[in-house]
C-alpha cells in the first residue's frame, strides 16, 4: 500500500485509493515483509530500499541525492545568473559559502592543494551538509510503501520513496571509496612511486650509528605496515561514522515521535535542533578528515618544518 506515515502517528488509510501497481508490489512482497513487519515496526530499515534497476540500481536515497544535487545546482545557477561586482542576495550567500570554504581549506591544506582538490572537498561538505539537513524534511522516510495492519491502517513505511542520503551505507561507502581512489591519484602525483614508498615506510629522523639506522629501518617498516592497514580502513571508518550518526539521528527522531502518541508534534523538536548540529558537524568532520588525509600524504618532508 502506498501511503504516508509521519512517524507512525499520521497514518493514511489509503488501501482503496492506492494505485494498483503499488498493490501488486505490496502483494509480491507481502509474505516476507509480513514477517519483517514485526521486527521492523519500530525504527527505519538499515538498508535503503531499491526502487528499480537490475544492475545500476536506483535506491530511495539515490532519488533524494539527485533532488538535493538538483536543488543545489538550481540555486547556484540562480545565484550566478547575473554576477555583480558588489554581490547581493543569493550571489552574496553563495559567494560567502564557497569563499569561506575555500579560505578555510586553504588555511589547512595550502593554496596549491586546494586548487587541485577544492571541487571534491567542497562537494563533500556542501552536499553532505544539505543532504543531512534535507533528510530532516518531513516526508523523507515517511512517504512510500508499507504493510497495512488488520484494520487497513498504515503505521510503518517499509519501502520509503525518499530516504536520508547518508542513512544509506552504499552512499557513504561510495563517497569514501571515491575519495580513496582520488587520494591514491593525488598521492602518486605529489610523491611518485618511490616517494610514496618512502613516505610510508621510510625512516624519519637521523641516527648516527649503523645499528641505530638499521633499527630505525626495521621499526619504520613495521610502522609502514600499520600505516597501510590504517589507510585501508579509512573508507570503512569514514563511511560508518557518517552513516551511523545520520541513521541513528533518524531513528531517534522516529522513536521520539512514537514515545508519547499525543505529543509526537512536540517531543522530537529538540532532537531536530540536535540533528541540525549533527548534520553540520558530520559534514565538517568528513571533509576535514579527507582533507587532512590528503594533506598528510601530499605534504613533503620539508613542508613539515
Amino acid at each position: 500500500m502506498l501511503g504516508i506515515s509521519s512517524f507512525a502517528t499520521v497514518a493514511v488509510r489509503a488501501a482503496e485509493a492506492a494505485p494498483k501497481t503499488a498493490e501488486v508490489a505490496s502483494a509480491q512482497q507481502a509474505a516476507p515483509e509480513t514477517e519483517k513487519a514485526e521486527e521492523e515496526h519500530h525504527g527505519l530499515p538499515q538498508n535503503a530500499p531499491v526502487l528499480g534497476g537490475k544492475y545500476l540500481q536506483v535506491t530511495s536515497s539515490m532519488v533524494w541525492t539527485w533532488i538535493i544535487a538538483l536543488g543545489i545546482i538550481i540555486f547556484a545557477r540562480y545565484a550566478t545568473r547575473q554576477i555583480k561586482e558588489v554581490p547581493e542576495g543569493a550571489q552574496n550567500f553563495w559567494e560567502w559559502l564557497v569563499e569561506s570554504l575555500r579560505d578555510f581549506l586553504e588555511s589547512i591544506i595550502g593554496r596549491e592543494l586546494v586548487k587541485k582538490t577544492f571541487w571534491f572537498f567542497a562537494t563533500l561538505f556542501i552536499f553532505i551538509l544539505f543532504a543531512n539537513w534535507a533528510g530532516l524534511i518531513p516526508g523523507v522516510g515517511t512517504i512510500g510503501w508499507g504493510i497495512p495492519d488488520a484494520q487497513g491502517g498504515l503505521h510503518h513505511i517499509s519501502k520509503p520513496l525518499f530516504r536520508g542520503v547518508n542513512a544509506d551505507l552504499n552512499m557513504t561507502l561510495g563517497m569514501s571509496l571515491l575519495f580513496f581512489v582520488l587520494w591514491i591519484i593525488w598521492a602518486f602525483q605529489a610523491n611518485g612511486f618511490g616517494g610514496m614508498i618512502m613516505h610510508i615506510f621510510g625512516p624519519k629522523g637521523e641516527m648516527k650509528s649503523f645499528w641505530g639506522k638499521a633499527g630505525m629501518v626495521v621499526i619504520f617498516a613495521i610502522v609502514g605496515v600499520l600505516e597501510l592497514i590504517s589507510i585501508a580502513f579509512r573508507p570503512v571508518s569514514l563511511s560508518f561514522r557518517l552513516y551511523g550518526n545520520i541513521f541513528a539521528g533518524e531513528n531517534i527522531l522516529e522513536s521520539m515521535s512514537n514515545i508519547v502518541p499525543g505529543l509526537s508534534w512536540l517531543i522530537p523538536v529538540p532532537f531536530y535542533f540536535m540533528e541540525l548540529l549533527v548534520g553540520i558537524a558530520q559534514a565538517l568532520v568528513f571533509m576535514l578528515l579527507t582533507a587532512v588525509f590528503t594533506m598528510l600524504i601530499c605534504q613533503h618532508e620539508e613542508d613539515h618544518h
Partner: protein
Amino acid sequence: MTFLLPLAAEGGIIENLQKSAQETAEVFGVNAWALFSQIISFSIVAFLLHKLAYKPILNVLEERRKKIAEGLANAEKIKVQLAESEARVQEILTKANVDAQRLIDEARASAQVVADRRTQQAIAEAEQIIAKAREATGIEREKIMAELKREVGRLVIDTTSRVTGKVLTQADQKRINEEASREVAA
C-alpha cells in the same frame, strides 16, 4: 596475540574478516551494484556541482582577486608616480623660483642701469639747459650792458654838454662815451 586465536582457529584472519564483511554488508544492504551505482551517482553530482555551481563563483572570486591585486599594484604605481610628480613639481618650482629671482635681479639691475642712464641724461640735459640759460643770460646781459653803456654814454654826453654849455665834438663824444663804458664795465 591471544585475541587472534579464535579467528585463527576458524580458518584465519582473512577468512574471518571476509565473513564479517559479508555479514555487515548483508545487514546494511551493501552490494556491489548498489555501491557502484552510488559511486557513479555521486561522481556525476560532484562533476555537475563543480561545473555548474562552484566554477562560476570561483571564476568571479579569481577575477576579483586579480582586480584587487591589480588595484593594489596600480595604487602602488600611482603612489610612486605621485611621489615622482611631486618631486618634479618641487624641482620645477625651485627652478622657477631661481629663474624668477634671476629675472628680478636682472630687472633690478637693468632698471638701475636705466635709472642711472636717465639720471645722467637728466643731469646732462639740466646742465645743458643751465648752460644755455647762462649763455642766454650772458647774451642778454651783454645786450643790456651794451644798451646801458650806450644810454650811460648818451646821458654823460648830454649831461656834460648841458653842464659845460657847449656842443661836444665827435671826438669828445667818443672819448666820453668810451670812458663812461669803462666805468660801467668796471
